């Protein structure tokens, strides 16, 4: 091996004045010599350590490097040794000295997650990107303050990588950089995983099958295969195999929020397997009085009962067998040492597998073999009850008990059977014991104190498009629904009176547009009936030797309108303004226009809904319902129109999505969303107006994909700059605001006529 002289040579080449570092050098060198293969790597290691020593950031960086760098290189590549040290040096010289130690401390954890040189390099690049984007700079250079988040980024990265791929980490980090640019505190909270946004984005980027994405699919599964309709409630997991078990109670089925694929079984099927197991319990399991049995007996009963419901479920759906077989952990028979450990869990895990696989479990333990056989004989007879499993459980424990079962050191399986719940429904406790059930009881009274009922509906969350990052910010905007307050309906009637001429004009147009239930189409070569007048004329022509007209039939055509319309009115602050040359404010003109439109559409019989919106940051987009699709244009609705008033800002995208949400539930051939606005989207918490414009454009595109036509009526003379960005060609700019009351109904009829 390495002689003392070569060690001395190495020590010579480690140029460092710190006494502390020199003290730990020898053990670190030994570890490095073990983990590194080539002399060049040792060279790199020593040079790297020396570099960090001379950096002027104290002894800590070099200590961490000495301890962790060899292992890091061992799982990635020896080329990284020099690179890691240079990287640390680079951070220090870019005003981010505070991030050097967090970086060096995390590098091993990160390397273990990535396990490749390329991955590590990509991570380092990402770190530089975060540094560049978050370090304050003046005129693009001369960074004088450190990045507020870089240390937090390095500290959090290993934890995030436990759940995300590298590209997921990159998305998560870029989101944080962009979303909170200019707000160091929020940015720091994000990178420390302390903010809600941060966790939401993390959740979005997770690998595996998210319950949230598959709720409907699993709901379909429950309903279709098991005729059940219970809510699915996710609980958070970092690793679904080691934390809480699934369970069900009166409030729903509690499932882990994510399942990774395992042993070739996709996450969605793991959910289904778990649900099948739970449904089996619901259908076939009774309860057992827990007081009568020892905890170990209860464990055994639960294993038999789980196997029983799975047996019955597999009899109904044979495909479950493949799934359970792939997912059930298989412990080695000698995994537990009865000489020093309590092997109850080990035995039960083997039993559980043997019950699932009676033929090829491969275990030699006679008790396991006997009870697997007894279980299957009993199941084959049919008509089993939970009580039969109680019997088997007691007998198995009596047969297989060992003195070592009472040992203090207990063997626990590294993996649990993740498709089983915790069987809490199985037990009935008559006497209060010192079981964990007490926790529930203590928690009871606190739970029963119902919170004050909130009069308002909970907000609906919508994503928002971030054009810079080219991604949706998930659940970004909260939209609150409410009914628009009512005013005096007579006000609207007066408005309509004022426009009597116009009203009459519109009525005439409406009459023309109104579907005539049956329409006769004459002069058809082929039709439903002979048109006798034409036929006789044609016969006369023929007799006279002239060319007869062959179009002697007629048919009927049914003209019907099948269109749902929503009108979305911008109620932001600016509509209170009175434009130059107009005697009324935009708000008043809007009221008139809305009233005229509503009256016309009512006459046509098309379902119309009207809503107003304004916003005050992304946390509060107010969506006020003025008229529902099924409401008539009556005094109540008129009263709401009369009470329309100017609010705050215009976060258009969220309002569009929300209106689209309601429209998409309409069962009409055509769905039209009219947007009446006087300016471009803006909100007080967004500094870049282009972002909300881009978001609104995205929203329009989403609506179009869902079959909803969006049309904008804009009152802003300068709207040309942005309105086509958002709505494409589907907009009308009303140049003279005074003409709005006339223009709106006319436009509607043009669009739908």
């Amino acid at each position: 091996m390495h002689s003392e002289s070569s060690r001395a040579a190495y020590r010579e080449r480690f140029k460092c004045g710190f006494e502390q570092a020199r003290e730990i050098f020898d053990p670190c060198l030994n570890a490095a010599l073990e983990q590194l293969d080539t002399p060049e790597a040792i060279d790199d290691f020593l040079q790297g350590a020396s570099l960090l020593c001379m950096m002027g950031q104290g002894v800590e960086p070099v200590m961490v490097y000495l301890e962790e760098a060899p292992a890091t290189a061992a799982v990635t590549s020896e080329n990284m040794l020099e690179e890691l040290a240079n990287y640390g040096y680079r951070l220090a010289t870019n005003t981010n000295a505070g991030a050097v130690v967090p970086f060096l401390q995390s590098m091993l954890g990160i390397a273990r997650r990535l396990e490749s040189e390329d991955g590590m390099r990509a991570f380092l690049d990402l770190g530089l990107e975060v540094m560049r984007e978050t370090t304050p700079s003046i005129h693009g250079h001369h960074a004088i303050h450190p990045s507020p988040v870089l240390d937090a980024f390095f500290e959090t990265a290993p934890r995030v990588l436990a759940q995300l791929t590298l590209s997921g980490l990159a998305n998560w980090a870029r989101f944080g950089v962009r979303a909170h640019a200019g707000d160091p505190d929020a940015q720091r909270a994000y990178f420390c995983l302390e903010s809600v946004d941060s966790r939401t984005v993390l959740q979005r980027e997770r690998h595996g099958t998210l319950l949230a994405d598959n709720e409907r699919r699993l709901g379909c599964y429950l309903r279709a295969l098991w005729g059940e309709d219970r809510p699915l409630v996710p609980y958070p997991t970092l690793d679904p195999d080691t934390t809480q078990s699934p369970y069900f109670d009166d409030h729903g089925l509690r499932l882990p929020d994510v399942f990774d694929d395992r042993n070739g079984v996709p996450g969605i099927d793991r959910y289904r397997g778990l649900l099948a197991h739970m449904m089996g319990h619901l259908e076939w399991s009774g309860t057992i009085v827990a007081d009568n049995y020892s905890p170990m007996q209860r464990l055994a009963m639960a294993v038999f009962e789980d196997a029983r419901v799975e047996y019955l479920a597999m009899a109904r759906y044979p495909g479950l067998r493949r799934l359970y077989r792939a997912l059930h952990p298989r412990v080695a028979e000698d995994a537990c040492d009865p000489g020093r450990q309590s092997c109850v869990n080990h035995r039960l895990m083997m039993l559980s597998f043997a019950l699932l696989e009676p033929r090829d479990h491969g275990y030699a333990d006679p008790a396991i073999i006997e009870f697997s056989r007894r279980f299957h004989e009993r199941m084959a007879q049919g008509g089993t009850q939970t009580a039969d499993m109680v019997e088997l459980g007691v007998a198995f424990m009596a047969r297989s008990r060992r003195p070592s079962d009472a040992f203090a050191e207990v063997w626990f399986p590294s993996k649990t059977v993740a498709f089983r719940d915790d069987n809490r429904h199985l037990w009935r406790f008559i006497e209060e014991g010192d079981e964990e059930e007490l926790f529930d009881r203590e928690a009871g009274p606190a739970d029963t104190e119902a919170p004050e009922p909130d009069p308002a509906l909970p907000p609906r969350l919508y994503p928002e498009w971030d054009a810079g990052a080219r991604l949706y910010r998930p659940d970004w905007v909260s939209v609150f629904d409410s009914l628009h307050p009512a005013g005096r309906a007579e006000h609207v009637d007066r408005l309509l009176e004022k426009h009597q001429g116009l009203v009459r004009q519109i009525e005439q147009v409406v009459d023309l547009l109104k579907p005539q239930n049956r329409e006769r189409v004459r002069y058809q070569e082929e039709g439903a009936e002979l048109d006798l007048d034409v036929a006789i004329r044609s016969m006369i022509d023929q007799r006279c030797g002239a060319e007869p007209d062959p179009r002697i039939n007629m048919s009927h055509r049914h003209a019907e309108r099948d269109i749902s319309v929503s009108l979305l009115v911008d109620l932001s602050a600016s509509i209170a303004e009175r434009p130059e040359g107009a005697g009324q404010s935009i708000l008043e003109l809007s009221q008139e226009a809305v009233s005229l439109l509503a009256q016309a559409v009512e006459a046509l019989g098309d379902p119309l809904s009207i809503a107003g919106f304004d916003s005050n940051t992304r946390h509060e987009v107010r969506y006020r319902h003025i008229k529902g699709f099924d409401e008539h244009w009556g005094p109540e609705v008129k009263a709401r129109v009369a009470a329309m008033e100017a609010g705050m800002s215009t976060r258009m995208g969220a309002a569009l999505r929300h209106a689209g949400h309601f429209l998409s539930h309409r069962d009409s051939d055509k769905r039209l969303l009219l947007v009446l606005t006087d300016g471009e989207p803006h909100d007080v918490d967004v500094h870049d107006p282009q972002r909300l414009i881009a978001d609104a454009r995205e929203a329009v595109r989403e609506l179009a994909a869902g079959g909803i036509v969006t049309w904008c009526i804009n009152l802003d003379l300068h709207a040309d700059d942005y309105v086509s960005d958002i709505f494409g060609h589907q907009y009308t700019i009303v140049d003279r605001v005074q003409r709005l009351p006339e223009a709106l109904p006319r436009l509607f009829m043009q669009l739908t006529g």
Partner: protein
Amino acid sequence: MSERFDVEQYRVTEEPFYQAQDDEIEAFETAYRARMPVMVKGPTGCGKSRFVEYMAWKLDRPLITVACNEDMTAADLVGRFLLDADGTRWVDGPLTQAARSGAICYLDEVVEARQDTTVVIHPLTDHRRNLPLDKKGELVEAHPDFQLVISYNPGYQSLMKDLKQSTKQRFAGFDFDYPDARTETEILVGETGLAPETAAKLVQIAATARNLKGHGLSEGISTRLLAYAATLIGEGMAPARACHMAMVVPLTDDADIRDTLDHAIDTVFG
């Protein structure tokens, strides 16, 4: 003309396979003895048309079927004038033909026709039992053996598609639904010769889809689609493939539901 009309072509000569679910055969015979108009309600593909065909065979009456649709006019049912070299010529519609010749006239999916079309059947369905041809100026007295049968699917009844009360209340009714699992298995075995175990699995899959009705599916998997799947399996196709082709693809485009049904097929066939 009507003399040249050959009603014999409408006679059901071979016994159609029909598995009774209940006492519907006797009940229909009783209604026929009274020449009472009959309506058969039920979801699509549950055996309504097969039942009517079977009854026509059993009663030995010709069966004239009209598949109703939205564009159908009263003239399509009653008849119309056509032109020929000498002038106009009247041609009876299927309803008139059946009334003259004593056939069973079966209006399939009658709600598809417009309500104003459907009213032409009214005089045939009460004590009058005649059909006025107002264009021609003739009153056709119904043949003593004539009977009117209509069918429709109350499942996709929208507000637009329903019978008028005045039409509904002229019929005695049969309520059909998908048969119970045992009967449906027998039907599949009888209709396609499939092995009973496989047939039972098809029925089990159908049950899962029927659970989803109203939750993304407007109709469950019909017995007809089951028979398709059974036929494909009988022709040698792998069961899972046949089920996907006959029972999933035609049914829906909803990805979640497709996925659930495919999973049900996988898990039932193991």
